């Protein structure tokens, strides 16, 4: 049972192997056995400190050639574009579309590699969280690759920054303006899409406002535009409704900034984000007292994330049995986490179709609610894709050179302990140890016949896959 008084107080113990790996998984994407060992014996507070005060990451290379259709429009110029025949225009649109699709694939790979290589994994973890929370899909609705990249950078900039300011920034972000139609929200014909989702999905939750609040908020947000030729956002006062609006119990000639301020002044907003942060770092369906505790932290810190996240990651509840392996890995966490754990430094492009089969394509969430997560990742179809990814990875060429797997001792009992220790922090039963050892030793003679020509190193890779096939590996 949760002790609400002590749940958020600092955990006084030092980290053992399991808690060190737990912290690395939750505050990032896990790490090699060596990285886990480096944290063993550390005080939780010190370990968290290193993760929260992350280094400047400007050293991580920017992606190459993020496609920006406005460069094409510029080439033609407004007059040149008008002069195109219908066929030429269709042809141009098709070319642009192809460039966008190619660009998105390289952008996805770039981000996955960044998650893997960054010296600041918590920054990427929060960016990924924001991407699923304040969703935007690329290519749809005129959202260009450059726009989603810029939005991604905005989320990264605010990774542990101020939630209210991030929300404000996103409200004027071209990708968001287009994705939720606020770029076509004008005084004469308000479009409520952004106004509704801002409250329902992003800040308050369903049933925490009235239909009138949606309509009034939509009026406050009128006038924002995106210039198609340049992809830039701007405010057009002529299209803004500057009349009086009644919103969440207040009234005035509100604009969008006022709406954000009023929303973030609602106690429900702090509770909403508190539950989201607990679901990200601790466990799903947190107790109301725990939500209230984190909400109070958010309010005290005026929605600054660094102190709030830091408190969560060093808390007693974070290091409780209830939190340990209590979350399902998302496909991106599974993919990046497996590369990170095995110590393979670069993701293979084949992870892109694999992630699609697992149900998570970056910059293409299923809808504005993002990926529902949790048990929704657990269908038999998605599980097949997860298992096939893991089986494919250990057999790939890329594994040969870089991973610590090459150094696993050539002795069945030692190798069994090395694999289950490194990949599962010993979260397996004695019978599973025995089975894996027998597999490595080739005890099953009929099976040995199947393994014609196989050497021990290949069998290590098979055993590594079987270790990762165990249920614990699917849990975060």
């Amino acid at each position, binding site marked *: 049972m949760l002790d609400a008084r002590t749940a958020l107080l600092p955990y006084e113990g030092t980290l053992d192997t399991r808690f060190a790996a737990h912290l690395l998984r939750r505050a990032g994407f896990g790490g090699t056995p060596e990285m886990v060992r480096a944290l063993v014996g550390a005080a939780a507070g010190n370990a968290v400190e290193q993760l929260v005060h992350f280094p400047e990451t400007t050293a991580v290379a920017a992606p190459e050639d993020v496609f920006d259709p406005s460069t094409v429009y510029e080439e033609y110029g407004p007059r040149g574009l008008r002069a195109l025949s219908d066929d030429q225009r269709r042809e141009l649109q098709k070319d642009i579309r192809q460039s966008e699709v190619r660009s998105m694939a390289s952008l996805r790979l770039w981000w996955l590699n960044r998650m893997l290589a960054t010296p600041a994994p918590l920054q990427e973890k929060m960016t990924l969280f924001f991407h699923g929370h304040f969703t935007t899909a690329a290519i749809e609705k005129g959202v260009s690759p450059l726009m989603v990249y810029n939005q991604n950078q905005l989320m990264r900039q605010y990774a542990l920054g101020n939630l209210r300011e991030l929300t404000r920034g996103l409200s004027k972000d071209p990708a968001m303006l287009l994705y939720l139609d606020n770029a076509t929200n004008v005084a004469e014909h308000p479009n409520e899409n952004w106004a509704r989702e801002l409250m329902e999905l992003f800040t308050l939750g369903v049933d925490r406002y009235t239909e009138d609040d949606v309509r009034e908020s939509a009026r406050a947000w009128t006038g924002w535009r995106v210039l198609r030729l340049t992809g830039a956002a701007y405010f057009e006062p002529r299209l803004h409704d500057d009349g009086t609006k009644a919103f969440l119990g207040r009234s005035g000639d509100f604009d969008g900034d006022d709406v954000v301020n009023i929303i973030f002044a609602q106690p429900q907003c702090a509770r909403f984000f508190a539950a989201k942060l607990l679901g990200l770092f601790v466990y799903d369906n947190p107790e109301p007292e725990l939500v209230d505790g984190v909400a109070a932290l958010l309010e005290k810190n005026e929605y600054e994330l660094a102190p709030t996240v830091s408190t969560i990651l060093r808390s007693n509840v974070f290091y409780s049995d209830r939190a340990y392996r209590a979350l399902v890995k998302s496909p991106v966490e599974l993919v990046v986490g497996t590369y990170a754990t095995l110590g393979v430094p670069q993701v293979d492009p084949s992870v892109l179709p694999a992630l699609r089969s697992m149900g998570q394509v970056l910059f293409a969430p299923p*809808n504005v609610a993002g990926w529902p997560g949790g048990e929704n990742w657990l269908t038999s179809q998605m599980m097949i894709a997860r298992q096939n990814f893991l089986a494919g990875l250990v057999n790939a060429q890329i594994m040969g050179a870089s991973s610590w797997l090459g150094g696993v001792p050539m002795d069945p009992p030692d190798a069994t302990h090395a694999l289950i220790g490194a990949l599962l922090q010993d979260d397996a039963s004695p019978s599973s140890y025995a*089975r894996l050892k027998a597999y490595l030793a080739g005890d099953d003679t009929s099976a040995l016949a199947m393994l014609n020509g196989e050497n021990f190193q290949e069998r290590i890779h098979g055993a590594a896959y079987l270790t990762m096939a165990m249920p614990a590996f699917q849990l975060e």
Partner: protein
Amino acid sequence: MKRARFLLGSLSGIAVVANADHVFARALAAAALPGLPGTENRCLVLVNLQGGNDGLNCVVPHGNSDYYRLRPTLAIPQSQVLAIDAQLGFNPLMTSFKGMYDKGLVAVVQGVGYPNPDHSHFRSTEIWQTAAPDRYEHTGWIGRYFDESDLPESNLFNGVSLAPILPEVMVGSKIDVPAIASEAAYGLRIDRNPMQRDEYTALIHDERLPFTSPYLPHVMEIEDRAQRGSEELPKLIGGYTTNASYPATPLGRSLALAAQIIGSNIGTRVIYVQHGSFDTHVNQVAVQNRLLGEFSDAAKAFYDDLAAHGNDTRVLTMTFSEFGRRIEENGSHGTDHGEGSPLFLIGGGVKGGLYGSTPDLSATNMGNVRFTTDFRSVYATVLERWLGRPSAPVLDGTFEQLAIL
């Protein structure tokens, strides 16, 4: 967003099968149903037109001047409408579908919705799938139908979702429904390596783990079902052949697989497919027309495939969408979230024609089409007259049935 944690609570009711050897045989034994009389042999196919299909540009009120007044840029010109009568007609891209309607294979139920409509995609989708407008229900109406039925739990394919994510409509506490994105993708790589497969089978049932997790039983259950399903599905449906030509669209592929599953007689009672997104806030005509054309052509190919195998009278296809859209267009050549909209029932067992009241575009609720038929009336009709089960326990109440079946 409220998302129910529905699966965890239900897991205790699902036995984790530790021995995979005899399961294949059991699934086969449970599968043979050809020639059975009555409702036992029937199948329901649900098509989710997700995103909120605009009913007024789908079943077009081309005899109504309000429609043309309120939709200056979006209205379908009268000359293009595939007229059913002087008042109504189908979207011009739905020629195949109109052909089926003319043969009496399609029932159009107009103005379907529910009281106090919710305009959120997520809540309204949840309402349609759980059939519970007035409470937060954790199971879907088909899931509860499964719970109430006596279908064999050993059959892996009582229900099948042809979508990567299991929709809430299929969630129950007894029958677990696999989500199958495509047959090709539904295969475990280690099936090709007998030794690893055996080890995998043993290791995923490791029950004495030194930790607990609310998701652990579910992970184990799904790993088990993934392995059994991947092994069995190709064997169960591999013998089906067809000459039907489906459009090369995601919906075409889904319905082709649905026909294959139905035609293989593996005991599948309900299949879910999805199509969309119909969330046309902007530039609606191009998007919705394309989607309706794809739907129309895929539905026709599906029906023809079923008919060629003699399955057309034992399959009922029903569409649904979380809401219709506003009557008046917005400033972006689109429409915002609305309320009532038409749905379709398709098949050889349907009494074709128009049902329900034609939307009154003047007497409206804040610019929306008021619902005139409760969607639970349609569900009750399908449950009682198609699936042959009492509807009250599933729908938590009694709803008037329609004479469409």
